[in-house]
């Protein structure tokens, strides 16, 4: 190990040794020549010479203040000290490494996600475009902007990712794909690894169908074949030509594996009320978000005036936010919370090590006092103690880097794939610098107090001499130790409260009633390719046949089809009420309604109660089918104004739009005054469409026959374990159409778990950190109490000699621990009360000052403190008074 050579004695050291050896030899020879006995001569010479080590040390001091040499010397002392107490060193280094490693791992994530720009060229100019907060774009709105904007160099539309059935590669597989406009890639500033993307104009109907593959898909399905370009593959039974492969790591939007041109013909994009699109834009250099938003808002206003009749939703506007904020804004709070948590864990680790060092410094008190008395300056002693701490911290930091690295490797297991645009998460320069600084700061933090104490002790000993100094230092040391323990309890209480709140919030979230049945629900998705199922009638025929087959399976109580699952629906539109002024309220929220297509059995299967009116029936489906066929066969001649579809709505929608009227029989439209109209035939219970946290929104249910936006999803209710039906469902689908694979087979409980996965990770991690903090605090309390007992053995002996019982001693020691715990808990509760309100945005259904959590956590900590006191207290109670007194 070459590092040890650095610390081994150098030549000058050997020289000095030899010089002294020669001196002694000459002195001995002189004495022998004078007639002394050789052995006596040697002893006398040595006595005369004095303290050899001290002389060497003071001589060494004359060699000059070469900084590296000095540091090496300090480091060598420090290493020697460490080798003397290996178990202390191992414990301290591991404790530190845990704390530093956790900080390194969390910081590397923060560094990549929050601190560094997206890994696209000029990422500050990239934005996401909306018609309002949370309101996706309508096609016409986007075309207006694209044509008339002044603030953007480019913008590109894309659609919410869908599943594609891919054949022609390795195995047939289902992959997420997205249809995008031609400018999508150039707006982001990415170029393909192989081949090309498509040009403008190819994103039109009638153009050749082209597909760009992700790096991962290219690797897994096409064996990274470089001659893939130009090859045909089939997506949903249609032939596509592979034109490009994207570079590794590019998966924007998240998890997407292939990109296909989007049909940008105005007819396909839908009306101004259909908010089904997402868009990205690249601002011109120097343009601010604010200016971009103002630019687009002006266009919206101008268009409103131009087409007063067709653009019915005046409250639809422009909303621009930075791509970075849109992608990662929701993570920010949680990430900072994690960093605060691990920082607190490290703080506790430092406090513990400070305590250990204090205990050790009092053990080495004599050594320090002697060195002080022999003239070592206080600065010199301080520096030596500190260099030990710093070396310890650096060792901890180095080991911590390993832990951090392991943590970073393990991270994707917890969080899933890393989104495109995130710079690589790893140990880069800034993370290394962070870790180094953290290690040095920790070293100073836990080293300063003990170093100060021991150097003080040395100076005091010199000044006063004797035992007085030792006693008073012992008391001071005890006081500091007590303070540190109280601080540890306070910090771990704060963390434990945060963990408790997160856990409670998570449990509440998991058990949130989102309006549908949870147990015994199986969901499965199929993809009906347009080539085979091109018309609504064909889709309806298929779904009816499938429902009949699945409904007849043993154990199935009911079955239905839907285009969106609860918690996972995102298609909505803005509505116009029949016979009512539209613009009473200008807020966007006022007119957005979630759209949902279902078959009649849906409410029964999902246990959504009927509140008023009636549920949709098979007859409603037939009628709707007839209407839509009529509409599509005579798109120009038919009078949509008079077309009326029957729909069910949820309770929230009924209360919002017809608070004082009977909602049954009311009409509304997604296409302004032009219709077609929806007529309410029934009101059903609320479900949560936007996730567990988001309260129910207005929602309408219309007859299902394959929606453009959603999927074709089978839901069934069974009394059997839900997943056990999966093979039977696949068989039934295959019996109808052997080419139709079934995918995304999941139970409702799995869907809920997936929804709350982020909260699960957060509460798991913070719980882990809090647990670590409590463990460290317990070790700290144990250490201090054990020290106190050892210090007071004498006193305890006297007590017992004077008649104190074992139980009195036990109570005395435990009482002191309890006092410390109570002080720590009081401080911790105050701190937690001040801090937990920062958590409120992460909490669901729990107040940040939840008294139950606070009380429970306080009790847990007091119990832990008492437990940690128990062993030292027992030891104190076993003190033999005679033995203790004799020790003096």
């Amino acid at each position, binding site marked *: 190990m070459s590092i040890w050579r650095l610390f081994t004695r150098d030549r000058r050291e050997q020289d000095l040794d*030899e*010089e002294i050896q020669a001196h002694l030899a000459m002195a001995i020879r002189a004495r022998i020549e004078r007639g002394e006995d050789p052995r006596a001569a040697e002893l006398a010479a040595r006595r005369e010479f*004095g303290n050899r080590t001290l002389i060497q040390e003071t001589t060494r001091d004359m*060699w000059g203040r070469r900084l590296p040499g000095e540091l090496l010397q300090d480091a060598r002392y420090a290493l020697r000290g460490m080798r003397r107490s290996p178990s202390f060193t191992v414990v301290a280094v591991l404790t530190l490494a845990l704390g530093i490693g956790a900080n390194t791992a969390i910081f590397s994530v923060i560094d990549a996600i929050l601190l560094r720009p997206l890994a696209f060229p000029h990422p500050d100019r990239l934005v996401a475009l909306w018609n309002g907060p949370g309101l996706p774009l309508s096609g016409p709105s986007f075309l207006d902007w694209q044509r008339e904007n002044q603030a953007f160099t480019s913008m590109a539309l894309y659609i919410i990712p869908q599943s594609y059935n891919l054949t022609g590669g390795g195995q047939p597989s289902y992959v997420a794909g997205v249809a995008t406009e031609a400018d999508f890639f150039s707006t982001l500033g990415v170029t393909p690894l192989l081949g090309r993307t498509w040009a403008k104009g190819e994103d039109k109907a009638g153009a050749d169908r082209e597909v760009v593959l992700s790096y991962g898909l290219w690797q897994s399905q096409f064996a990274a074949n470089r001659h893939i370009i130009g090859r045909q593959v089939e997506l949903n039974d249609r032939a596509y030509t592979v034109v490009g492969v994207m570079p590794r790591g590019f998966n924007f939007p998240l998890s997407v594996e292939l990109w296909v041109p989007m049909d940008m013909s105005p007819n396909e994009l839908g009306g101004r009320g259909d908010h089904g699109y997402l868009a990205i834009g690249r601002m011109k250099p120097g343009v601010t978000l604010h200016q971009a938003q103002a630019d687009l808002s002006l266009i919206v206003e101008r268009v409103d005036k131009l087409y007063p009749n067709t653009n019915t939703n005046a409250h639809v506007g422009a909303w621009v936010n930075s791509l970075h904020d849109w992608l990662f804004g929701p993570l920010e709070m949680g990430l900072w919370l994690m960093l605060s948590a691990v920082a607190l864990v490290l703080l506790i680790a430092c406090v513990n090590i400070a305590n250990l060092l204090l205990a050790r410094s009092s053990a080495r008190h004599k050594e320090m006092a002697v060195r002080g008395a022999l003239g070592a300056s206080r600065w010199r002693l301080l520096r030596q103690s500190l260099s030990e701490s710093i070396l310890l911290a650096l060792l901890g930091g180095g080991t911590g880097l390993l832990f951090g690295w392991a943590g970073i490797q393990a991270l994707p297991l917890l969080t899933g794939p890393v989104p495109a645009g995130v710079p690589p998460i790893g140990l880069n320069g800034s993370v290394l610098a962070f870790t180094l600084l953290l290690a040095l700061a920790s070293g100073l933090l836990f080293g300063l107090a003990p170093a100060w104490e021991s150097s003080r002790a040395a100076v005091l000993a010199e000044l006063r001499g004797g035992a007085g100094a030792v006693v008073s230092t012992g008391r001071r040391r005890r006081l500091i130790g007590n303070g540190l323990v109280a601080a540890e309890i306070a910090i771990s209480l704060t963390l434990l409260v945060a963990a408790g709140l997160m856990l409670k919030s998570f449990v509440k979230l998991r058990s949130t009633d989102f309006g549908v049945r949870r147990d015994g629900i199986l969901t499965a998705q199929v993809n009906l390719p347009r080539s085979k199922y091109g018309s609504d009638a064909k889709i309806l025929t298929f779904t009816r046949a499938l429902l009949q087959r699945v409904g007849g399976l043993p154990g199935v109580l009911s079955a239905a089809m839907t285009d969106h699952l609860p918690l996972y629906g995102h298609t909505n539109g803005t509505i116009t009420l029949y016979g009512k002024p539209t613009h009473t309220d200008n807020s966007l929220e006022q007119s957005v309604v979630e759209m949902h297509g279902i078959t009649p059995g849906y409410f029964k299967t999902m246990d959504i109660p009927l509140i008023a009116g009636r549920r949709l029936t098979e007859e409603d489906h037939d009628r709707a089918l007839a209407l839509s066929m009529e509409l599509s066969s005579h798109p120009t001649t038919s009078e949509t104004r008079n077309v009326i579809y029957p729909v069910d709505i949820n309770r929230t929608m009924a209360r919002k739009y017809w608070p004082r009227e009977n909602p049954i029989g009311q009409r509304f439209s997604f296409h302004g005054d032009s219709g077609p109209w929806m007529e309410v035939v029934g009101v059903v219970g609320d479900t949560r469409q936007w996730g567990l946290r988001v309260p129910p929104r207005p929602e309408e249910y219309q007859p299902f026959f394959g929606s453009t936006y959603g999927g074709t999803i089978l839901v069934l209710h069974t009394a059997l374990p839900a997943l056990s039906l999966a093979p039977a469902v696949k068989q039934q689908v295959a019996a109808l159409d052997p080419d139709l694979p079934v995918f995304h087979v999941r139970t409702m409980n799995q869907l809920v778990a997936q929804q709350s996965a982020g909260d699960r990770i957060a509460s798991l991690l913070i719980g882990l950190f809090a647990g670590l903090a409590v463990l460290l605090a317990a070790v700290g309390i144990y250490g201090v109490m054990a020290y106190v007992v050892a210090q007071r053995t004498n006193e305890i002996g006297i007590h017992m000699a004077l008649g104190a019982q074992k139980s009195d001693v036990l109570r005395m020691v435990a009482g002191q621990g309890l006092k410390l715990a109570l002080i720590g808990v009081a401080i911790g509760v105050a701190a937690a009360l001040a801090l937990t309100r920062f958590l409120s945005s992460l909490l669901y259904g729990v107040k940040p000052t939840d008294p139950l959590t606070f009380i429970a956590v306080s009790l847990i900590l007091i119990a832990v403190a008492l437990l940690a006191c128990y062993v030292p207290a027992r030891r104190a109670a076993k003190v033999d008074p005679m033995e203790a007194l004799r020790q003096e």
Partner: protein
Amino acid sequence: MVKSEPYRNRIELLQGTLDMLILQTLRWGPQHGYGIGQAIRCGSGEVLQVETGSLYPALHRLERQGWIKSEWRSSEHNQRAKYYQLTAAGKKQLAAERGRWNQLSTAIAGLMGAGESEGNV
């Protein structure tokens, strides 16, 4: 607790003084640490005892100042030892210190002599 130090018939050297005595001793030629200590002791009639704890730091300090230099040689008894010898700068330094010492001792002698005569009145 504090023990009183036994009286010792020995004069503690001021730091600057020891440096000067070492330089002075080396005027007669190269010498090792032990020899320097012995020379000062004998030369002062056993009055001046040089502690090794002062001698070696002083030697290394003087060497660092460039007033003396050292080399390893064998002594008369075939004992390898580190010999120190004056450098040109050291000779100059010695001259300067001697001048200062003369000034100082004259001044102190004058003061002490005056005190003595006063006491005699």
